[in-house]
């Protein structure tokens, strides 16, 4: 068998613009892997994995932080109860991601970077991923200290920092500021709160009904795809809305349903 290593001229199929995987792809992968391995080794030589004192179930650290990739979700815990922040929203993120290929029927931008041809899809994804996931992780990692209070990275953690908790539920906020006395009643308040949430989601329905006649896009999308898209988008925006309500009006819950142990 011939073992001489004559260099083969570059073979590029002009019709399909294809090259051989060996050596082109395999070489690139090998180089990527090699460089990453070197990087990982250097990282491992200069920085040791953390190991704190032995587990002690009687000593709760303050703050107790989840692993960094879950700190976005832990940050959401400030604004929503665990059943939302820890269960419903993560499940919706996973399901929501999975349905993307089926609700995005725009054929453009398949296989290349583009912003102009997919403005809606790209902006939604960037808001969700870059702001509500990555940015919240950064806040959780670097800006949260004892009591889950806000600390700048250069501020020392003061365990005794007390932030006055003046949060009130939406119905009491309306009672106190607008004199809507009837909202004192828990049942009326619950109906009112649920109604508000229903109204929020019906924005999506109204938009569809008003626009569907004139919008080719909505007609192509159809009511099912549109409904799922609107539901997911509105749910996503519920988070920043609730953040704003908390920051500016100290609102804790929109609706409380103590009978079934559920607050939103």
């Amino acid at each position, binding site marked *: 068998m011939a073992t001489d290593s004559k*260099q*083969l001229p570059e073979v590029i199929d002009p019709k399909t613009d294809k090259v051989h*995987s060996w050596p082109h792809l395999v070489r*690139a992968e090998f180089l990527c892997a090699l460089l990453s391995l070197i990087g990982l080794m250097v990282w491992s030589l200069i920085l040791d994995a953390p190991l704190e004192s032995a587990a002690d179930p009687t000593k709760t650290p303050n703050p107790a932080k989840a692993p960094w990739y879950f700190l976005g979700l832990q940050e959401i815990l400030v604004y929503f109860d*665990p059943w939302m922040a*820890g269960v419903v929203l993560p499940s919706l993120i996973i399901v929501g991601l999975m349905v993307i290929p089926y609700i995005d029927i725009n054929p453009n931008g*398949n*296989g290349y*970077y583009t912003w102009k041809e997919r403005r809606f899809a790209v902006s939604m994804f960037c808001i969700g991923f870059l702001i509500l996931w990555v940015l919240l992780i950064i806040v959780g990692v670097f800006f949260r200290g004892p009591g889950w209070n806000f600390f700048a990275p250069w501020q020392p953690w003061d365990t005794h920092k007390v932030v006055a908790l003046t949060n009130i539920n939406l119905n009491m906020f309306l009672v106190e500021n607008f004199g809507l006395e009837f909202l004192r009643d828990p049942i009326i308040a619950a109906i009112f709160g649920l109604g508000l949430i229903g109204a929020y989601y019906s924005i999506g329905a109204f938009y569809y009904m008003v626009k569907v006649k004139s919008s080719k896009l909505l007609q192509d999308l159809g009511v099912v795809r549109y409904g799922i898209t609107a539901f997911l988008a509105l749910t996503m925006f519920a988070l920043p809305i609730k953040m704003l309500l908390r920051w500016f009006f100290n609102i804790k819950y929109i609706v409380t349903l103590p009978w079934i142990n559920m607050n939103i």
Partner: protein
Amino acid sequence: MKEKLRALQETIVQSDVWKSIFRHGYADTPRNRILMVASNVFLHLHPSKLRRHGLTLRYTWCAGGLTFFFFLVTVVTGILLMFYYRPVAEYAYNDMKYLQFDIPFGMITRNMHRWAAHAMVIMVMLHMFRVFMTGSYKPPREFNWIVGVLLLTLTLLLSFTGYLLPWDQLSIWAVTVGANMGKATPGLGSQGPFSEQIAAWFGIATPRYDAGSLLTAGTVVAAPTLLRFYVLHCIFIPVVASLLMIVHFWRVRKDGGISGPM
């Protein structure tokens, strides 16, 4: 001398043993280039030819490939760690100390496992981001995107279950934060919505029998949790993730290779 070496080489390369292992020559011919990939079970994950576009780092960031690479690093280092680690509450922490201070290369093995796991999480997020930005989930790749989302979930769970194993203050409390969420599952968690009703009617969603205790093998993160997470971390999730990765890579090829402008 040179002649002799050549003769030796020829004898080896012509021998039955050699030919039984390597089915083709090494000469750089188009035929051999294809055989190189097609007759190797690992390289065969690749197509034998691909569009030049798919090679550009600017397009893929090699993010999917590096996710897989870091996964392989955690498999190798993880197996090494398993030789020294016992998932028992009395031993686990001491085994970590022993590993770090007494085992040759123990510290760097642990570091590489830890940082490769973090790198994998970072890369899988970047990979998803680039796949979205290039619209690569569009037909015909819809299903592979779904497989990808499952892989993303499994990657996070893999990292999360591993986080508990050092059995130090950092790990049990970090996992407690996460595991407590199980208790809040609507209908299935003892502290979630409808818990009272479900507990009264069906006898589940009590603190002992709810989604949280299924995850932590008890009402709190304790010794039984450690064993549960260990098995999930070392066997169950890696096996499922490996299977899905095989499907994922297979589908990349079957869906026409790396996406690109038509």
